[in-house]
């Protein structure tokens, strides 16, 4: 199941997940120890100055539900 995702431990902070994508943006997610998630999106070819989206655990689950197609609205 882990294909396309590289996991690195960041001591004292949490885990870094680098996600392979065929699109032009480089993606990574940092899961902090306190449950906060940060989504990093890099412009093609650029190493710095990423767009960073900060989500708490609840928000992350909501985004995940939408992305995975399991979100239901009434």
């Amino acid at each position, binding site marked *: *199941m*882990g*294909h396309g*995702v*590289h*996991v*690195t*431990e*960041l*001591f*004292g*902070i949490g885990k*870094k997940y*680098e996600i*392979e994508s*065929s699109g032009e943006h*480089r993606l*990574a997610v*940092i899961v902090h120890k306190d449950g906060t998630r*940060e989504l*990093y999106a*890099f412009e093609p*070819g*650029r*190493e*710095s*100055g*990423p767009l*960073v989206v900060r989500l708490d655990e609840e928000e992350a689950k909501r985004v995940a539900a939408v992305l995975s197609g399991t979100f239901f609205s009434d």
Partner: protein
Amino acid sequence: MPAELVALGASGVVAGLLARFGRRVALPTIPAFMLAGILLGPSVTGVIDDPHELELVAAIGLIVLLFHLGVEFPLEQVLASGRRVVGAAFAYIGLNVGGGLALGFAFGWGVEEAFVIAGAIGISSSAIVTKLLGELRRLTNAETPVVLGIIVVEDLFLAIYLALLAPVLGGADSLGEAAQQFGIAMAFIVGLFLLARYGAGLVGRVIDTNEEELLTVLAVGLAILVAGFAEELEVSDAIGALMIGLVISRTSAGERVEQLILPVRDAFAAIFFVVFGASIVLGDLGSVLPYVLAAIAVTLATNTLGGVLMARIHGLNQRAAINAASVLLSRGEFSLILATLAIAAGLDGRIGPFVALYVLLLALVGPILAARSGGLSILLPRRILGGFRFVERVPIVASCPHLESIEPAAPTSDVCEQCVALGDGWIHLRYCLTCGATGCCDDSKNRHATKHVHETGHPTIASLDPGQNWRYCYEDEVLVPDPDPREVRREAG
């Protein structure tokens, strides 16, 4: 009593407010707290009339600070992270502490003082470095896991260094007494280490409970108790707190204690930093300025060298080296802890203001340099990281689709056949990951590796030089370091 309460309360409020304003000029919290202490101290406003009144509270701050460090210490992960990270960490620490020691002796304040200065100059502030990495959005950088590994190893080094300094800080008068105190300190550390390794279950049964209120009371009490015992044994309370934290981290209650202790730590540690500041006489700061400037110069030099070494060991480029070096510049809690212990041991009075001013100035300079490190990487000549000519500005990524879609070929030869046929030499060798064809690098005269890429359209190459395990993709123009064998296993599962 009322005076102490007011002093204590003012410490918290002023420290907090000053730190809030400090954020606007990118000043980290620790030096802001220290500044608050200087302002509240007897040499400025005198709200804290006598810093010794708040000694107990400050001591608790030191204890809980180190206790938390021990509790969150990722011991197994560090040991599992491999020799390269530990190697880079030792290189970094060796350079910085070594440089500090040399400087300490050069100051001529005394042998014991030199050792304290070595530690105060040599060890980065884990708190500030971690915060900086997050603020600078560098958590996904290639060098960040190594930087974090370095600060974790530094924590461990601190424990050992404190043991080493036990005779210095305990006031040994003879070599025999010094050896004895060092022996007791090491025995204490080893004893608690063994407790962590084999007795964690027992300790867990004693303190673990579902009720958070009780767990907090037990954990804080235990930390202060063990620290107190350590003091009684003439081993620094700092070591006691750190080691018992390590013990707790191996118990079932470890993770919960780590969370519960945080607010306690933040509240009391702030008082520790404030009281340190309050014990500084403002007038002394001017007289230590030349020493501080020398120390900063040494720190800049040893840090940069350490960053380069780290990059060499891990196969990273100049950008990563400067990023790491500049972010690791910051000094803070450990330097202040060492200074506090030194003052308590009655060493040269200049150590206090020296460390205070040093930490303060570096706290201003460090974050600024770290933010500008991209531009600064131009200053590093290519020679130092030889063979990385085109890597200077190239992003390093974890993977690229072209690499993932092929079965990497083995190199067909260990020479550049085309160069040999022409009678030419080469500098470095590369081999194509699609078909294995070996060619010379872009620094060489003929650049056969790149020619092969253009002729065949095979996009990826790897370095054939021993110790260099990176791959390069011409399509994406990215550098991909060889993955950790452990990561590959994790991905497969």
